[in-house]
């Protein structure tokens, strides 16, 4: 630290070295666990040999775009892409509409205790893992002993195998995702609702506008920026159909409708040990996600004046 190189740098170092020291641990961890794996992306252009570990990043044979050609020729891959998009888009849409309706309904409640209780209870599933929620869903949706099917049977309906039928799996994924996550967006909308200028409502009442008109012309426009924001940020997630959830709820019977990119990457890599192919699929997803995320941030900034950093 005391070396006398260029004067300015040495004086800077004299006062600033503690700050470099403070950042050293995080830098080491980031280099190992974030930047080394980024280097590892090269294996999607190689025929990676797993036995050598990380050395294989540098020594494996290059195969150009071979892995990508292989993926795009796979029938499964196209299905997986479609599944991902359908599930993600429906989740994003439902994940906005339901919390929005709940926030609007909750906003009409005058009883504070009831309002607080509703909020408190709606958030509970948000903090539980998909392992736990998946376990609960597997149980309550079981066609033989689950409570939901017991109720259906009591109503004279045939039992439905929600998680084991390709026709019902997507609906089950979307509904359960809304069930877990709707508290989060609801908070955003509720916060926006309390920010609306109350005098607007007074003026509307004087003009004889009913509750419905007030909602249509004051409330909804008032929270439109937040609605746009949530939608735009959702766009960045269009290839994230929810690994944790799908992985804990799907099974081979429903792969045709529920297998998504992330679960596909997992099975290719961790189970089939096709490291290079799996990484190539991951890279394909990352590249598209990167474009989507950066453009969604740009849109968010433009329309909602929202800045991440």
């Amino acid at each position, binding site marked *: 630290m005391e070396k006398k190189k260029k004067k300015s740098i040495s004086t800077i170092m004299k006062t600033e070295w503690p700050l470099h020291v403070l950042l050293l641990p995080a830098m080491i961890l980031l280099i190992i666990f974030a930047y080394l794996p980024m280097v590892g992306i090269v294996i999607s252009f190689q025929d990676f040999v797993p036995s050598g570990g990380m050395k294989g990043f540098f020594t494996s044979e290059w195969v150009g775009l071979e892995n990508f050609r292989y993926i795009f020729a796979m029938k499964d891959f196209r299905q997986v892409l479609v599944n991902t998009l359908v599930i993600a888009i429906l989740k994003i849409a439902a994940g906005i509409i339901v919390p929005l309706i709940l926030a609007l309904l909750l906003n*009409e409640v005058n009883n504070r205790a*009831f309002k607080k209780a509703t909020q408190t209870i709606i958030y*509970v599933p948000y903090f539980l893992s998909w392992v736990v929620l998946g376990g609960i869903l597997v149980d309550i949706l079981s066609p033989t002993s689950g409570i939901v099917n017991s109720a259906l049977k009591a109503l004279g309906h045939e039992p439905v195998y929600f998680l084991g039928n390709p026709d019902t799996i997507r609906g089950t994924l979307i509904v359960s995702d809304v069930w877990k996550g709707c508290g989060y967006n609801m908070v955003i909308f509720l916060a926006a609702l309390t920010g609306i200028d109350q005098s607007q409502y007074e003026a509307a009442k004087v003009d004889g506008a009913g509750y419905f008109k007030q909602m249509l012309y004051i409330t909804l426009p008032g929270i439109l920026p937040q609605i746009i924001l949530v939608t735009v940020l959702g766009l960045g997630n269009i290839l994230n159909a929810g690994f944790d959830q799908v992985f804990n709820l799907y099974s081979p019977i429903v792969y045709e409708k529920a297998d998504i990119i992330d679960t596909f990457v997992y099975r290719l890599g961790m189970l089939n040990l096709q490291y290079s192919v799996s990484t190539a699929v991951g890279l394909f997803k990352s590249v598209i996600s990167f474009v989507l995320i950066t453009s969604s941030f740009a849109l968010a900034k433009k329309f909602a004046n929202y800045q991440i950093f």
Partner: protein
Amino acid sequence: MKVKSSPARKVFVVINYIVLTLVMFISLFPLVHIFALSLSSNSAAQAGWVTVLPVNFTLDSYKYILEKPEVFKAFGISVLRVVLGTIISVGLTIISAYAMSQPDERFHARKYYVWVFLITMIFSGGLIPQFIVVKSVGIYNTIWALILPTAVQTFNVILMLNFFRGLPYALTESALIDGANHFQIMARIVVPISKPSLATVGLFTMVNHWNSWFDGMIYLSDTSKYPLQTYLRNVIQSVDVASLDLNSVGAMTNVSQKTVTAAQIFVAIIPILMVYPLLQKYFISGMTLGSVKE
């Protein structure tokens, strides 16, 4: 808002309360149901008689898990990872955010470091390269594989960085002039006044560690080292596939896979429910913490 209500409004209000009550019921029912199942007898559970209250109340499922050392062990490993993981992660967040919150004239290299962090938010190596790295650096199949790869949470660092930058400049400037060094300023001035924000970050780090299961599944080869969530996943999946196991559960006729799994699921929920009042309190402040105040 006490204005005379029209009949239509009254009807709406009543329906609104009913709908929201229903929503509360749906949010909570699955949890209450699983709890009731864990306290019910096997026959009642299998027959589908259990709704929100235990039928033929029994503690046998819990007695059964208490006799299983694996559940205890997995619970202990989860507690250990939460404690170690949170201390390390929050510690790293504080020191990194503090350094990068310095104004440019106090820290000339600041913006380069910020970029090193930001890039990790945008790009990632993906599942397999990360797996290969963890395997190659010697932490595979140890608890460190659950802690170190996620120890630096860039999002939290940025959050705290923004928070520190919002603190009055004079606060640290006068201390620096008085000859205090950065370590002292950080420990004695910045951290104490940032306690609520740090508590928020710490709390969510704890919950994330408690809820993580996938890293345990891929980075640990030994199932005896699994944290509770990963262990639980195995239990649930095996129920799903091989219900044959059902009767091998033991001499206790009052328990079954169904009730025992319910009890194990509930055990995994308990710690979350214990900190839930805090989570609820910090949930909203946590979401606004990261907003740029400039």
